[in-house]
């Protein structure tokens, strides 16, 4: 292989939750929250994972860190198979992979001081003395822009943005390689979101971090991610380098999703044509047969309702699970032209992108 091995490699990852019903708690079905996803994350990059609520993006993030036990599939971190690791080796691996949670209100213990929260991983995983820990906590507070004079205060004394900084400092305490950021800015006001995103970018540069950035905010993901994966109903519909995805989305779902994002520009808003999807996302307990998106896809063909499309590389670095695109022309460099061969696909994707007459 010409490229270096990825830091994180996910293959066929699935996370199913059983559904029990009745007095006997009989198992009546499963919710396929994550149903076979493949992705790789290169060292130092930010992979954006986007999708609407219930698509499985947060569950995917948790399963990758093994915060829940995946039903199937493999996750490798620097070559180590995470999914089958015994408890003790898993514990020793934990410092390398950390998480920043969505709701800083719910993910910080209200009875612990900021110093205790940020220092807890150090107590668990290192042999630092108390003085060393205090020094490390203060360094971390500096790094995330928290005043170290507030080390002995409690989470409720901080604003939402500052609480998120506490959560980030805790995630960084053990010098992780890989950080899953699960909707880290969703609970924050717009003016505070930019502060936190800039901080995450600074920390990435400074400490060489690799991020999986889970978000429903497509504009913010365009800002922060190097590559983007779009999830729908437990599957990855499309994965591509950022600019390619935003300029020329291939999957009809990505096209609809991008065209639905309102843009802060009245001129664009007045002229753009939208793809309005009908209906709602089906339940992950009863996904439609064939392609998951077929029940709402404006371009669905008969084959889509029968055959589940494979997730495969259709152009170099661009993966899509859709019958509109021909089989793997990866070998051929001219393949860039092959994708928009079908008439419907490119016009739909270009319409929202070309807003001016």
């Amino acid at each position, binding site marked *: 292989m010409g490229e270096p091995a990825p830091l994180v490699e996910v293959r066929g990852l699935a996370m199913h939750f059983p559904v029990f019903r009745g007095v006997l708690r009989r198992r009546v079905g499963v919710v396929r929250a994550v149903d076979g996803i493949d992705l790789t994350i290169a060292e130092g990059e930010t992979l954006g994972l986007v999708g609407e609520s219930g698509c499985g993006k947060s569950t995917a993030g948790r399963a990758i860190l093994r915060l829940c036990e995946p039903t199937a599939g493999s996750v490798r971190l620097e070559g180590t198979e995470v999914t089958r690791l015994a408890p003790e080796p898993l514990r020793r691996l934990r410092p390398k992979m950390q998480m920043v949670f969505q709701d800083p209100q719910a993910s910080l213990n209200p009875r612990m001081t900021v110093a205790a929260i940020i220092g807890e991983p150090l107590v668990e995983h290192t042999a630092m003395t108390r003085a060393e820990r205090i020094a490390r906590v203060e360094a971390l507070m500096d790094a995330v822009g928290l005043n170290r004079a507030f080390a002995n205060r409690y989470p409720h004394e901080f604003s939402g943005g500052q609480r998120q900084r506490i959560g980030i400092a805790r995630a960084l305490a053990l010098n992780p390689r890989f950080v899953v950021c699960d909707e880290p800015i969703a609970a924050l006001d717009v003016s505070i979101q930019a502060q936190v995103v800039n901080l995450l*970018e600074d920390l990435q540069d400074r400490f060489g971090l690799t991020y999986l950035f889970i978000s429903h905010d497509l504009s913010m993901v365009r800002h922060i991610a190097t590559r983007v994966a779009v999830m729908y109903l437990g599957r990855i519909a499309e994965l591509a380098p950022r600019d390619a995805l935003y300029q020329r989305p291939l999957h009809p779902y990505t096209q609809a999703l991008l065209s639905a994002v309102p843009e802060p520009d009245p001129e664009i*808003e007045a002229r753009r044509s939208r793809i309005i999807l009908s209906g709602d996302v089906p339940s992950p307990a009863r996904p439609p047969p064939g392609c998951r998106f077929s029940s709402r896809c404006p371009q669905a063909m008969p084959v889509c309702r029968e055959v589940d499309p494979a997730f495969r590389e259709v152009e170099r670095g661009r993966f899509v699970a859709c019958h509109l695109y021909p089989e793997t022309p990866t070998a051929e460099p001219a393949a860039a032209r092959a994708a928009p061969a079908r008439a419907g696909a490119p016009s739909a994707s270009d319409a929202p992108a070309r807003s001016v007459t």
Partner: protein
Amino acid sequence: MPDGSVPVLEVEGLTTVFRTRSGAVHAVNDVSFDLRAGELLGVVGESGSGKSVTMMSLLGLLPRPPAEVRGGRVSFEGADLLTLGEERLRSVRGGRIGIVFQDPMTSLNPVFTVGFQIMEPLRRHLGMTGAQARNRAAGLLELVGIPDAARRLADFPHQFSGGQRQRVMIAIALACEPKVLIADEPTTALDVTIQAQILELVRDLRRKLGMAIVWITHDLGVIAGIADRVMVMYGGQVVEQAPVRALFADPRHPYTRALLGTVPQLRGRRAGRLRTIEGQPPILRAPPASCPFAPRCAHVTERCRRENPRRRPVAPGHDVACHWSPPGAGDGDG
């Protein structure tokens, strides 16, 4: 009015204070605006800016105590809503003024059918009989795009999806053909593709029904796509007010300018680094004696800390509460 259209709702000097255990919070400070027939007025601001409390105050929906509406006038159909008794106010709410709240999960009653909840205002405000109300309720559900409407009247809220519940809320708000619809973050809890459906529905309903709408949101993208005029709130005050295109093309208040700069774009050049507004929005413990944005403002001067700027016109239909003028801006004020 520059365009000569009549205001249907006029708010003057509205001031609301919350008395809390840790002292008073001055949530709404001398807010004035009007809403003209058929227009959609967008109200933008961050949490705590006073946008929801302003609307709740004028509708008499705040619990008193702790809330206290200290002053102002709200003229609607020849009456001042602030001095109207609770009984008459109740006949205005849900009747001549429809309301849609952010969270359709908590604002529908889970133990009544959706049909019952749509029929309630029809019976109460319009005195319809059961059969009349049922017919009209089915028509309303159809209007907001719920398939198989007549049959679904018998369903309970939990049998509808999030987007459908918000459609039901809109149907209830529209039941009595209100002159004014107040929508408080009606799409914030929804996914983008569902939000796009609801925005499309509202555009369509405006064409059909022509009511005036106040749309509260923190999402500048939604505002850009749906509003005719925009009011920006900060620290319980209106800091800028303008026609939508003017606001985005020529924002005058440093807060509006900063806010527009912090949101990343979906297309065009990617900013290397996002612009930020350092600091936090204020919690006003006293009536503002200085500009509430002064501590975070890039153009702050001594005057801003001494004197809370009054709104002044800068262009037709465009006013701003700020002592500073962007370089090159042709101001109507000396």
